[in-house]
């Protein structure tokens, strides 16, 4: 039988971000595959070394476009640890609201992404319309829709605008009321189930082998390993939420967990809005003007739980006005780069887009 070479992406509706998967197929079975990254923003880590601590905030959100806030959080949190900086209480809660809204938006985008490869565009339209409402909220809070540049060293950039609680609550109520509809459109829909049930597996051994975290790990291992629980940052130790798990990781079960997390995120945001105290939202890292802010010598690993798993910045400072070295742990790096190469072969061509979607691949994380 003759093998054929196919490209999935970078310009393909089923591909997530500007990366390409090279497929060598025999009939419709993938025999060999690998990811071809490097088509998106590159060299973040190096570029960060040349920028000031303060103006890196315009660069870092680009490391993950659908969920940029985790970058800001990991960076700000790490620098604050090096600076031994206590940020105002209110800032912690605002950060959590931003992070959970971002998680919902990322999950919606990914869930909507299920609609493309399975031919259920209604799902995609609904999910993106709801994500648009979140972007409107982000725009009101931070002044920008996608690259918020809102979580900064020392807190958040500015206080929440007046009346934003109303907007957020209205959105959460609306989303919650349509939760069942969302399930019906996607993972309860028999024709979708036929595509995602008992396929695109992620067994426990593979999780340990590749170092998969997040939903991939929780769906396979059945343990609620979530950084918000095991290493609480911000004020996650003061809110109540569950970490959904399963012990059978097929594509459907991973998507199911995503939807369950959506409900948890809604509950976290509501708790934050209730518990959030009044007060200042930002402190200055040090005296002087921002271009002369220095961060003391030292190194720190600052992880956060992204929608795709553990996402962290390893930061080294030599005491200057620029970071000395920053390394990013992209949450989807293991499954995206290694998983595609090792575990995608054997599936079918039409599974490829679903593989990439349900594994939660974000290509700039790999390119960074």
């Amino acid at each position, binding site marked *: 039988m003759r093998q054929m070479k196919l490209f999935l992406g970078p310009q393909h509706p089923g591909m997530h971000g500007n990366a390409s998967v090279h497929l060598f197929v025999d009939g419709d079975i993938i025999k060999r595959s690998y990811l071809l990254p490097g088509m998106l923003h590159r060299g973040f880590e190096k570029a960060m070394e040349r*920028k*000031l601590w*303060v*103006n*890196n*905030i*315009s*660069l870092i959100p680009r490391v993950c476009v659908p969920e940029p806030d985790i970058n800001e959080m990991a960076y700000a949190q790490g620098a604050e640890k090096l600076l031994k900086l206590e940020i105002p209480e209110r800032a912690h809660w605002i950060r959590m609201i931003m992070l959970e809204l971002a998680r919902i938006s990322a999950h919606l985008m990914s869930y909507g992404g299920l609609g493309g490869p399975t031919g259920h565009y209604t799902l995609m339209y609904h999910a993106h319309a709801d994500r648009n409402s979140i972007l*409107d909220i982000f*725009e*009101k*809070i*931070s*002044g*920008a829709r996608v*690259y918020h*540049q809102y979580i900064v060293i020392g807190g958040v*950039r*500015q*206080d929440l*605008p007046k009346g934003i609680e109303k907007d957020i609550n209205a959105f959460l109520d609306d989303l919650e009321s349509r939760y069942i509809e969302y399930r019906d459109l996607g993972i309860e829909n028999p024709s979708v189930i036929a595509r995602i049930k008992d396929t695109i597996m992620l067994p426990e051994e593979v999780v340990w082998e590749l170092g998969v975290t997040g939903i991939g790990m929780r769906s396979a291992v059945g343990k609620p390993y979530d950084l918000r629980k095991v290493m609480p940052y911000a004020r996650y130790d003061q809110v109540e939420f569950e970490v959904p798990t399963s012990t059978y990781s097929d594509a459907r079960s991973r998507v199911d967990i995503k939807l369950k997390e959506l409900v948890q995120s809604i509950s976290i945001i509501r708790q934050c809005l209730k518990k959030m105290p009044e007060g*200042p*939202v*930002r402190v*200055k890292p*040090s*005296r*002087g*003007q*921002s*271009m*002369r802010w220095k961060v003391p010598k030292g190194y720190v690993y600052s992880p956060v739980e992204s929608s795709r798993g553990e996402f962290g910045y390893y930061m080294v400072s030599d005491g200057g006005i620029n970071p000395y070295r920053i390394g990013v742990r992209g949450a989807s790096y293991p499954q995206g780069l290694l998983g595609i190469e090792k575990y995608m072969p054997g599936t079918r061509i039409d599974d490829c887009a679903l593989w990439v979607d349900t594994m939660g691949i974000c290509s700039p994380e790999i390119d960074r």
Partner: protein
Amino acid sequence: MNTIMTEKNAAYLNDNAIFPLKSRLNSAPRTAPDTLRGFHTNDWEKCIGCGTCGEICPTDAIRMVERLDLPLVAGAHQQRPVIDYGRCCFCALCVDTCTTESLKMSKEYIYSNTDPDQFLLMPEETWQGRRVEQGYVKTETTDLLDLKRVEMEHLTPKERINSYIEVVRGYSKEVARQEAARCVECGVCTTSCPVQMHIPQYIKSIWEDDIEGALRQVYETNPLPGVCGRVCTHNCEAACAIAVRGEAIAIRWLKRYIIDSAPNDMYELIFNEPVSEVIDAKIAIVGSGPSSLAAAYYLRALGYGVDVFEERPRAGGVMSYGAPQYRLPDDAVNKDIDFIKRIGVNIHTSTRVGTDITLEELEKKYDAVFLGTGFFKARKLNIPGSDNQDVIGAMDFLPIARDFARGLIKLDDINVGKSAVVIGGGDVAFDVARNLIRIQTMKYGQADVKLTSLESFDILPASMEEYTEGMEEGIQFHFGFGPQEIILKNDKVEGLKVYKCTSVYDQDGKFNPQFDPTKGAFLEGEQVYMSIGQAPDLDYIPESLKSVIKIERGKLNTNSLGQVEGADWLFAGGDIKMGPDIITAVADGHRAAQGIDEYLYGKAKKKATSEYYNELRNAIKFNTPDLALKPKKH
């Protein structure tokens, strides 16, 4: 059709009938939220062209473009930002760091053009010629500048009224670096400084903890930094970009910090030796005040032999005999003068030109002569009773007070009464009053000093810090009164009669005080001190010379480089050229050094030079507009 498009889009689609609609397409973008980071607007009235927006821009999208049509004033550059919207990422750090709050962001977010050059825009108050709503603007939370000055330690009033210990204690290294970190390096201060000191550069060196580099920068333009770091009139701080909204960088104290922390042997590293090999000429300098010493330093740096003649036993002129010890201690003056001596300037003290050596002799012996004799004669008001012995001029009293502070005069020998009235509203009047407070407290255990000036408080010529410190020390102020008569009884001063001053200047802005005799007052005091200005003592200039040169109101007519008109070998600087402060005198000295060098080159009093030496010569010279610019009013 819900259209989100620019006016240009809509026009294009309508004109080319892309959509054959019955009604025309409209441009109706949705309204953005209040904090949207949209296209920039810049208020040109407020903008000072400091360029801080371009410095912080993470994408290098902002470039400063020269606009020579803008007025040239201190505290502003003739430039405005241009933003490349192909690079801009709308992070708004430029807004957060804007020193004047002129740069803001609008709610506009749609713009299209087929010409790539049209994405380079110079933001103005309007966007595309329209007034638009403000989007993201700077708030106190988002401000990236540090508007608060680091606290400087001062002696408490109690500690200072019976001692001559320096009031301002100076910065420690840590505090100085904190203060230096506030500077945005825009350089608007430089043009306001008469000597155009390299202020951003030395502040940066302080922040980098590079004292040698800072010292090098300072000595490029000012050989008396220890003095200027204490008593300069600091126009730079009025011009400072941070001062638009906050407290100016403490430029003067930072300069002082450099000198205080530079060890003596560091000075050897910054002086360029080789230039001294090339020129064979000698210059005499009359007087050893700030302008004379500045001229001496730079002439010596250019390689000339320099002799300075000073009539008093100490060099320094107003620095050693005018300014009070508690503001400018001898140590600081000596540190500056010692370095000038070390590089080979000969200072002959106790040598009065005119008696010990005549000006004619100097003219014969030297190739050029510089006069920097200053205003050392006290001026007195001509009112009844002013010829009494207890009516004392400021410049007669201050040198005595200074010698007393040095311990050269005993407390009992000093003629200070139990109470005194000081006339004048300038810094010198405050020097007199605060000296009196100290001497009276030491002598009698208490002080009674009244200060009266024609000017009311809001137009007081003295600096605010003199006023606050004077008030803390217990001076009683009577602002807005004009002295009429000194009341005597048995040839002893009883006090001063004053009338309320209704206006100081007439409609043309000329000095013409008007009094209201119905509102008078009597200020009691055993002595009256007059500090209403000083005059030069030009007796040493021979009549033959006076006939060829022009002297107007005590000032010599010179060209911009200090060359006296009518006598090309003669140069002048300081108070007798223009005045009024130490830093202007330093500028005069530096310019005169350049003038003398050019004059002697013209006369070919030099050895053959190589290009290398010429380069070094030019590096030492001074290149600046004639006048320091007046700070823009904020």
